[in-house]
């Protein structure tokens, strides 16, 4: 799921999409390391970038609250891509490593997302993803590891984020020790770990107002050389910080007919035990759809998600969390803050990602 989701997120992060032009035969010329089981994920080294792999991202989503009690959704993504071109070009501008970033702010009072993006080739001290630790920046947008966790600074067009993320739980390795299957072929996989329940504090400046905020976030770090299966139409993904300290990640990749092509997920209970789900154990059931007045796309913004025996309903912070990135990436999708409900009771908060509802995601 991560890789699917990766794909999605690539789309999110503006020009990341170039990496997915992998259908182009020229890509085949570049030898990417294949993600295979049995490779151990090692920290702290694997917090840093893996430039040999084609794609990689650090993806933070979370719910925060200002002092007035208003809920906000935040999303900060940094994406690294090795396009596999110009690898022998001696130019300092050679686009061997590309970096993208995407940030969004969800605010129910505003009614729709505020978002912005950055893109650059690594180099000239302007954009860089360090290999030894999480340290990635494009201009004045950055995500860096700190002694306590992470810090993100984002100066977007409509808002500014200055956030600290404190680690409260150990790393959650997805899949088999970080080896996460994305499709029926063994190579269709990624290295993937998550950091749920990051404690967020800091500032959000929006509409010229400086808000002191606090809340909880989720970080994914994933790297792979894989690509989206051609049969896929899009996917649904969610990551939820459960109120009891547990964490749920679930995804399914849809085929052309809306059926499930692949699925997966992980539940870490509050006691630290981890349950990994086989594709057949995951189910996404739309409960309510919302039609975008701008694109006419219809999204299942409320979902029932079943992961093994766990069943919960995802209810959006607001319906309109559609992200129109046609101008840069060429696609439109939905990425929004959701509440996880069990009956009437809220049992967690997280993010839901819906792609391929506008048009088939063809990257």
């Amino acid at each position, binding site marked *: 799921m991560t890789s699917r989701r990766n794909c999605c997120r690539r789309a999110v992060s503006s020009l990341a999409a*170039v990496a997915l032009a992998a259908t*182009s035969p020229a890509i085949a010329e570049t030898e990417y390391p294949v993600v295979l089981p049995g490779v151990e994920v090692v920290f702290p080294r694997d917090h840093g970038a893996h430039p040999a792999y084609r794609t990689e991202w650090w993806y933070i989503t979370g719910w925060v609250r200002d002092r007035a009690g208003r809920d906000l959704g935040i999303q900060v993504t940094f994406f690294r891509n090795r396009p596999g071109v110009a690898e022998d070009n*001696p130019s*300092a501008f050679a*686009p061997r490593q590309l970096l993208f970033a995407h940030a969004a702010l969800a605010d129910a009072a505003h009614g729709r997302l505020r978002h912005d993006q950055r*893109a*650059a080739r690594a180099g*000239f001290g302007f954009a860089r993803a360090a290999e030894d630790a999480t340290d990635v920046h494009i201009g004045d947008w950055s995500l860096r590891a700190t002694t306590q966790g992470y810090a993100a600074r984002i100066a977007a067009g409509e808002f500014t984020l200055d956030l600290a993320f404190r680690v409260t739980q150990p790393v959650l390795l997805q899949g088999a020790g970080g080896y996460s299957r994305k499709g029926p072929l063994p190579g269709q996989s990624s290295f993937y770990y998550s950091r749920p329940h990051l404690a967020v504090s800091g500032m959000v400046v929006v509409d010229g107002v400086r808000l002191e905020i606090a809340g909880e976030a989720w970080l994914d770090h994933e790297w792979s050389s894989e690509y989206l299966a051609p049969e896929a139409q899009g996917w649904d993904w969610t990551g939820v910080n459960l109120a009891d300290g547990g964490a749920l990640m679930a995804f399914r990749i849809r085929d052309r007919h809306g059926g499930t092509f692949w699925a997966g997920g992980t539940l870490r209970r509050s006691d630290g035990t981890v349950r990994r789900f086989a594709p057949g154990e995951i189910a996404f059931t739309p409960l309510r759809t919302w039609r975008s007045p701008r694109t006419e796309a219809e999204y299942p913004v409320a979902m029932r998600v079943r992961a093994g025996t766990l069943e919960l309903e995802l209810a959006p912070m607001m319906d309109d969390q559609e992200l129109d990135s046609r101008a840069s990436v*060429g696609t439109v999708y939905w990425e929004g803050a959701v509440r996880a409900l069990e009956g009437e009771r809220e049992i967690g908060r997280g993010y839901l990602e819906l792609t391929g509802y506008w048009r088939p995601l063809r990257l």
Partner: protein
Amino acid sequence: MATLAASRLLGLLRATAGSLGAGKGRLSISIAAIALGVALGYAVQLVNRVAVNEFAQAVQTLSGTADLVIRGPRGGFSEQVLGEVAQLPEVAAASPIVEVEARIPGRDEALRLLGIDVFRAGLVQPGLVPEVAAVPQPSAPDSPSREMPSLDTLRDDTVFLNAAAMAALGMGVGDFLPVQVGTGIVRLRVAGEVRAEGHAQPLAVMDIAGAQWRLGRLGRLGRIDLRVHPGVDVAELARRIGAVLPPGVAVERPSAAIESTVRLSRSYRVNLNVLALVALFTGGLLVFSTQALAVVRRRPYLALLRVLGLTRGAMMLLLLLEAAAVGAVGALVGLAGGYALAELVLGTVGPDLGSGFFRGVVARATFEPAPALLFLVLGIATALLGSLAAANEAARTEPAQALKAGDEQRAFRRLTPVWPGLAFIALGAALAGAPPVNGLPVFGYAAIACLLVGTILLLARIARAVFDRIPVARRPAARLAVLQLRGAPGQATVSLAAIVASVSLLVSMAIMVASFRQSLDQWLQHVLPADLYLRAAPTGDSAFLPPDVQEAIAALPGVRRVEFLRSERLLLDARRPQIVLLARPIDAASAASRLPLVRSAPPPAGAAPPAWVSEVAADLYGFDVGQEIELPIGGRSVPFHVAGVWRDYARQQGAVVIERALYAELTGDRNANDAAIHLEPGAAPESVARALRERVPGSGELETVLPAEIRQRSLAIFDRTFAVTYALETAALAIGLMGLSSSFGALVLARRREFGVLRHLGLTRAQVGAMLAAEGGIVSALGLGVGAALGWIISLILIHVVNRQSFHWSMDLHVPWGSLAAFTAIMLGLASLTALASGRQAMGGDAVRAVKEDW
């Protein structure tokens, strides 16, 4: 009230004028003359406006939303500059660009090829971000790939063309674009289109890393476009950035590039505008002669109107209104004609009017209201001024006197005092020496205007003096001709003014152009002393001769010596175009034989390395012999001693010559652009050229030319550049001839009664014809003489003041005696023929009855 009455009277006058038949024809010529002047001026204005607009738009597209642009030498500056400026907190986005004028084999025009960082360009110049061709994907017809950047924008072997480039090159997606780099060919796959809206000339875009590597620009940038955060003091930031930039690299607002180019072309444009104004002026003189004669012919009618109660002022107003109507009609016709002419020029010569300043700009004319209004006013004003003398004459005439038969001969007899004419000429002489204003020879033009006006004011005096000195012949026809001229010099003066104005313009232009051409020819012979020349490419800056090719050329059989030349462009002043740096083997001792020096002095011992600056460079940057100057070479400021100033007709932005070995030492650049090959005695250039093709690697793209061919080509370019001037000359000639025949025709018609009397008295038709031919001949000869003399003086001002100040180059006077003599003979013949024809027309059977006409 007065106007109403006047307009009614105008109708009356019109009717009376119409009754004389020929009025309409002369009216049309006046209208045509005004129209021609207005058309030329408006067309120049329109065409130039289009050129500047298109150029500005192209620059706009290239700079996008940039607030500042960092530029340097043509070869580029260190990419480290990007690291420094991109980090500045005030800078919102910095877009680095590699600029290459790519030589495309087999094409005359270089292709502008930009290496961009698609991510940064997207923030500053979104128009330059390519659109990737949609790859047909049957499974996904709605593929968004068309809207997304693709890997092709990042590859180093792909290129994106705008529509103009695709059309010009005849290429589409999937084709391979060959670019000559050095002496080799780099093939780039056309992967899609770049819209670059507003950039009407061909443009190619590729990835910056690919451009740096494939096109030989590693480590170098041509430009950095900066967009700053809102609220930042751009000027202050520019100052701070400028302070840390290496020598020869400057930061300016994007409009500076437009201004510097527009500035470079301004002199040329102003010259054309002045020519158009001269045409208009000639038109004004034609109106003057037409109106003057109309007033003479209608003298009794006008007197009658005065008798009937028309006041002096109303009479004046009446005639001026009439002229204004003529001017307005002429100007309107001219505006339409000017628009059509502009379209024609844009479609054929191109918007740079053959000057080459805006090469590659393609555009259509658009109606411009402001200049249209200006030229409408100019046309009307010209007609008003032209008719002022006539109106004044008519208004001042005592009606009782005018009613007397035969009084028309008295018109314009009053001699103006001598001093205004002399004062104008003296003023003209004084102004000719004044320096340019804002780079324009304003005083030079004023001097010419003063001389012209002064001479015209003195024409009556000159005419009288000359006519009084012509011996009275015995033969009746000639005798009568002389007596007529002596008796009525005023009328002759009216024709003379038009002749003198157009002839002096023609002669001065002819002398100036001939001098220029001759000087250019001599200059070419001086700067092309070798037996064979070789160029890496005729255009662009992507081609060069690498050291191994240079060695191979020098080793060719039959080659005695080769001088290699490296050409670069340095930015000395951000508000001016880059100056050309020519690095070639030269020293103080050999400079005179290699450069057409206009002044020089041997450098003192211990002086900095010598540099020789062109006249243009000397004028623009204030360089002079003996001075120490600093040139930004290789990212450093290097001192030079100006050892000489040389004449250079080739580089209008200025040029500096330095020793090539020193240049190579400073920059590490050992490539060359051109080679001047001196052959062993007896070696044939053709066989050496053949050997070159056989033995030198990559020589297939090299171009060898004989000096004679270069000379021929250069002169052809010169002639093309002056095509517009020639066109204006022809127009002036047309106006002059029209003026001549119109004046004569009018004069002759006015004298029908006289011919009738003479016929009564026993003059044969042939004798009357001979008389008219003699009169026409004498007046024309005088006009030609005065016009030629004045033209010669004006040509001196054009050569030594106007051209020197406009284009900063000197030339030697060369009078094209042959063509001037032929011109004079033709004009004389035409004048006599015109007079004869007019006489024939006037002497029909009506001549007899003309004696009965009481008025």
